[in-house]
Structure formats: C-alpha cells, structure tokens
C-alpha cells in the first residue's frame, strides 16, 4: 500500500524519483546477490572444484568407470524415451485443453498438475505398489516373466510420471493466449487437421515446445526420488547418474562422485542457456501477437 501511494505521489516524469534512495537500493541488491552467491553459485563452483580436485586425468578416469558409463547410458536411454513420450502427450493435452471446450477439462488440468504436487518418493512408491512383487499386478507379471520394478521399465515409468507436466504446462497458457482464430482460418481455407497443426499451430508454439522439452529433459536426467524407489540400485544395470553419484559418495570416492555430479551440473548450465533463448523467442512471438490484435 505504501509503495503504491509513493508511486502515485511522485508521478512518472522523473524515473529516479519513484524509486528508493541509492543506499537502500545498494543494500537490497547486494543482499540479493549475496544470497544468490551463497546458495547457488558457491555449490555450483564447489561441484567443479571437487570434481577436478585430483586433476583432469582422475576426472576422466572416474567417468570411464564401467558402472558410471552404464549409469550415463541408462540416463540417456530413460531421457530418450521419456522426453518424446511427454512431448507427444504434452502437445496433445495442451491442444485439447487450449483449443476445445469439453466436459472434465478442469479435471484434466488438475490431473496434469498432479506430479508436481506429489512427492517424487510417493510417485515411485505408487509404481512399486502396482507392479511390485507384492503389488496388484505383481503375481501376473511374475507369471509372465515381465520385470518392471527394479528394472529399466520401472525407471522409465516413474520418470515419465514425474516429468509429465513440463511440456503441457508450458504450452497451455501459450496456446490459450493465441486463441483459435488462425486454426479456424486454416480450416476455412481447406487445410486438413494435420496440415493445420503442422503449418499453423506448431510454428506458433515451437519455442514453447523447446522450452518444455529442455525442462522435461533436465528433470528426466536428474530425477532422484522416484527413480531411487523403483530402481533397486543394481550396479551397472539399474543405476542412473543421480543414483550413481549417491553410491560413489557413500563409498567415500568424493572426487569420482563430484566428477559424475559435474555432468548434471553441466546439463543444468546448458539447459539454462537454451531456456533463456527460448524465453526470449517466446516473448518476441507474444509481442508480434499483440501487434496483430
């Protein structure tokens, strides 16, 4: 309330007059920067410092460990399955929600958000309860010799569940803001549903899709809780990168643990870079959109 009052009183002609005195600004900005440095920059630096504590050779050797290579491989496979699956589901769900009205729409939106609100450990546990030996489908799966829990399919399922909302959540507001006019125009011009999607809808959302995909990918590769519950921690077989980091750390191989962890940190940095570009492109698209209205 005070802020609003002060803003009105000072009017808008002179920009500096509406803001706080220089000392207060300096204090606030330094506090924010110090906070960032302490909680974000310092740990990130620590990861790389520790990773290279024993030199470049040791770093490479740690990554060449067969169990670690297998963990990297499994993480890549998991992401390679989860990201396209959630890309598909996400686009379909966002398309349905943003461009059509139907019964149960708000229920669907709530369901899409569910993985965000459930603890990842619980998400993992759900799959153990369904597919585990003592679970609902356990006996049937065992009879048919299908392994899901403590095997790769379980890891993939749990990761898909946890990363489900990323693409859809990103696209729904974007598609809603774009409305249905362009699609309807395409239909009246004789385009089929697929032509409309690929030639009109997709070009308008492609940066949003990229944004959703990289966030989804970062989470799929970095997920710990849900995967930990369903993986069974079988070395060289069902360990992903985050699980491998934990094992190495528990075995006091700090340099190796941090070396593997640095891969995830690098992934985070790349993700941030792409995310920034995508955000900028989406903003650009939005302003074009506004110009058109």
């Amino acid at each position, binding site marked *: 309330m005070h802020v609003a009052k002060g803003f009105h009183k000072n009017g808008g002609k002179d920009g500096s007059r509406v803001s706080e005195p220089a000392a207060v600004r300096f204090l606030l900005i330094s506090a924010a920067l110090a906070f960032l440095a302490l909680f974000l920059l310092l740990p990130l630096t620590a990861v790389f410092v520790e990773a290279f504590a024993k030199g470049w050779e040791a770093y490479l050797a740690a990554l060449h460990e067969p169990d670690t290579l297998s963990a990297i491989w499994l993480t890549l496979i998991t992401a390679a399955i989860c990201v396209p699956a959630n890309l598909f589901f996400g686009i379909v769900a966002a398309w349905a929600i943003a461009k059509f009205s139907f019964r149960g729409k708000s229920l669907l939106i709530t369901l899409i958000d569910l993985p965000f609100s459930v603890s990842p450990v619980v998400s993992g546990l759900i799959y153990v309860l369904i597919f585990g030996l003592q679970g609902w489908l356990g006996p049937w799966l065992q009879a048919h010799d299908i392994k899901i829990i403590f095997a790769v399919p379980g890891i993939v399922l749990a990761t898909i569940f946890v990363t489900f909302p990323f693409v859809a959540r990103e696209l729904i507001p974007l598609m809603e803001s774009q409305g249905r006019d362009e699609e309807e125009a395409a239909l*009246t*011009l*004789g385009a089929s549903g697929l032509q409309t999607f690929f030639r009109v809808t997709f070009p308008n959302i492609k940066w949003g899709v990229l944004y959703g995909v990289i966030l989804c990918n970062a989470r799929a590769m970095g997920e710990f809780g849900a995967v930990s519950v369903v993986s069974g921690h079988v070395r060289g077989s069902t360990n992903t990168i985050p699980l491998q980091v934990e094992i190495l750390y528990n075995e006091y191989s700090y340099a190796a643990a941090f070396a593997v962890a640095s891969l995830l940190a690098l992934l985070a940095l790349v993700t941030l870079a792409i995310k920034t570009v995508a955000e900028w492109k989406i903003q650009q698209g939005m302003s*074009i959109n506004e110009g058109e209205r």
Partner: protein
Amino acid sequence: MSIEIEGVGKNFGLFSALSDVQLTVPSGELVALLGPSGSGKTTLLRIIAGLEKPDSGRILFNGEEATNRDVRERHVGFVFQHYALFRHMTVFENIAFGLTVQPKKSRLSKGQIRDKVFTLLKLIQLEQLWDRYPAQLSGGQRQRVALARALAVEPQVLLLDEPFGALDAKVRLELRRWLRRLHDEIHVTSVFVTHDQEEALEVADRIVVMNQGKIEQQGTPSEVYDRPATPFVFDFLGNVNLFQGRVHEGMAQMGGMQLSSPEHSGTNNVPAVGYVRSHDIEIERVPLDASSVQAEVRYILSVGPLVRIDLALSGGEGIEVDLSRDVADKLDLQVGEKVFARPRKMRVFTDDYQI
C-alpha cells in the same frame, strides 16, 4: 450461390444465442447482419461457415442440404475481426496458403499459384509488400491481406465477421467503400456482421437487423431505415427520441403534442410510444399547430456538418435535435431560449410491442 437458413437455433449452456432464425441470402448479394453485441449475429455467421453447429434447423447452399457439411467442404471465405493472419508467414505465403494445402491432384503449380497471388495482391494494392510479415503491416493492410487470402480459394460465399471493427474511423470508411466496389466487381455472395448501423446502411444490398437471437427485420437499407418494423429497429438505426403517451382513434397525445396517427384509427385510448429521429424535428420560434411543443434550449453542440441541440420539455425530459449547419445558423439559437419543437415524422408503436 444462395444461402437458405431454416429454423436455426443455437444455445450456449442456458444462453439462447439464436432461436428459430429464417433467412434467405440471394445469390450475388451483399447482406449485412446488424445488431448489438450478444444479438447472435456472429454465431449465425459461424454457423453458415461451419465453424459452429446449429442445435436445430438446416442450412442450404443453392438449395442443397449443407448443415452437416465440414468447414473444408463448404468453400466459404471467412474474414475474421482480428484478421487471424498466420503470423509466421509472409503476406505472399498467407494469401497462397489456401492454394498450397489443396490435395496434390487439384493443386495449382507453383507458377500458377504465384500468378494468382500477385493478381490478388494487385487487387488489394499491396504488391510491394508481398514479403512482409503481418506484424509489419497496418491494421487496414492486414485486413486487406485477410480478404485476399479468403478470396484466393475462390469461395462461393464470402463471410466477414466485423471486418472493420478493429480499425480507426478513417481507414474503416475507406475500406468499406473499397469492399463495396470490390463486391460490385466480383459479385460473390457475401454476408458481413456489424454493429455499426452506418456501415450496414452504406455497404449492404440488404440489412438483417438482429436482436436477442432473433431477426427483427430484413430489407433494403432504405426499407429498414424509413419503415422500421419494430421499436427496436427504430431505436437501433440512427438517433431517436422517445415520447410516452396514448393513442385514441387515430390521434396520438405525446408529451404535450397532438399528432395524427392514421394506422391506429381503431384504437381506443391505448398507451403508446412515439419515435422521432433527431433530424426529423423542426425548431421554430412560433408554434405551427397542435403538434408543436414548447421547449428550452439546454446545450448546443457542433458535430461536424451537423449542429446537435439538446432541448428540455416543460416536464423536464430532454430531446435531441440534429439541424444542418445552415439551418442552425439562420435560427441563431441561444442557450436558455424558449422555442417550439415540432416533429415532422413520428412513428407510433402501441404497447403490445416490447423493446
């Protein structure tokens, strides 16, 4: 191509957007659907286009059943209020879109598409801007591109949803005259939606006045303007003054005025409302007959070529009068002056009509 709409109804939840609409659009005509917002005019247009399904009734194109025909098979050109240009395509690509999505067998060659697009660009006078993106165009230019895009597929019907609604006054005026000329050239059956009575009166061959999901009146612009069928139409088209009163055996008593109302000769002291357009009132310094009523000048406003005079009757109710500038100059009215107002034409509706 002619369009027939038979008993079409449409509900959105509990809201009845259209009920039992009957309308025929003859081939080659330019028809305006005119009404306030929420009158169902856009819904009707979208039903004709196939973007919306009616809950009841039928749509016939050239006498053939088209109610369940898919949007793509209706061959309509649709122009949206906010243009709906494809923002990631150039002007050229926008106009060519409808031609490039045709199935391979019936699709024109690249060269033919190019020729056709440039012919259309010439028609909308935007040849120079073929490689621009929609964001780089003005509102009027965008709407012309949208029109060219709709015309590219040679539609049998052209449907326009408030085509000039988002434009500023001057561009709107230019563009609607251009649309009228264009229609005289290509004669495609066209329906356009508007809430602007002036636009409808100027552009359309026929006007369909809509209110609350029903058609109030349809006819040529002069028919609906000069002989409004209902109080609503009277009220909606042009500036109008209302007088409460009664009619008795062909004579109307309205706010101190006495006028003859021959079409109500059989009535016996029935409550009625009189409608007088603001330019159908004469201001005089001496009363002419019983239809003159004394009033005081409250405000005088110059509105372009007109002078709008706000009068107060003895009971306090106000009337608006539009005078042409030279008539107003001759009268030289002063604020506060007592004058006499006399309606030249009054339309009386008895109370069985409801607005």
